[in-house]
């Protein structure tokens, strides 16, 4: 179960709308509370994929990842996962998402249709890399 604060949700929604027609991306920081993952903060990362492909691709580089780890350590939280947008496409994890995913992380996907928020879902890849499974989440 992923718990997203209203502020975190609003940040993701706005980032998705602002980045349209490109994909946006960012980091989910928070804490594990038993089976619950509590996202306390999100922060945006510049999409480093080639600009011509950003309408359907995003990239967070290893340098970005290391910076996110430093921020997480300083705030005494963990990297829980990542978010990105699917412009004019459903918030369903794609084959490309699966091919590039790490296990354990929550992958929050926000669908932006014609410049406006449509819906949001969270996914976790199975440890055998066979598929993503939808993760229950709440916005509180």
């Amino acid at each position, binding site marked *: 179960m992923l718990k997203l604060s209203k502020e975190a949700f609003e940040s993701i929604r706005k980032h998705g709308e602002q980045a349209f027609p490109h994909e946006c991306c960012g980091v989910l920081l928070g804490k594990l509370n038993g089976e619950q993952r509590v996202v306390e903060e999100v922060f945006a990362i510049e999409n480093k994929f080639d600009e011509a492909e950003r309408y359907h*691709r995003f990239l967070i580089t290893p340098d970005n*990842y290391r910076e996110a780890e430093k921020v997480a350590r300083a705030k005494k939280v963990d990297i829980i996962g990542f978010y990105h947008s699917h412009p004019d496409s459903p918030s369903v994890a*794609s084959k490309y998402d699966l091919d590039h995913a790490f296990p354990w992380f929550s992958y929050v996907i926000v669908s932006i249709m014609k410049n406006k928020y449509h819906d949001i879902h969270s996914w976790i890849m199975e440890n055998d890399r066979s598929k993503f499974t939808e993760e229950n989440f709440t916005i509180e």
Partner: protein
Amino acid sequence: MSIQILIPTPLRQFTSNLESVAVEGNSVGEALKNLCVKYSALQKHLYSDDGKLRNFVNVYLNDEDIRYLQKESTPISDKDVVSIIPSIAGGNI
């Protein structure tokens, strides 16, 4: 020689939750192969079916990406630290 490999959070479930694992090896590639012998569930997350490192798995020797050194043939010494650093990619369709 024995060196330390730093394991990123998403892969620690496969290394008994260890953040750092000591393995033997004279090159980065040997050390990574020995890591996968020790913790076999890591194999599919680090390597593709054709045995190549997945392109979103980045390996650093101390602070340098091994792609800019001698890749997996990069020699290592016992004071070196190898880090596995994810890059996160995806997108629709």
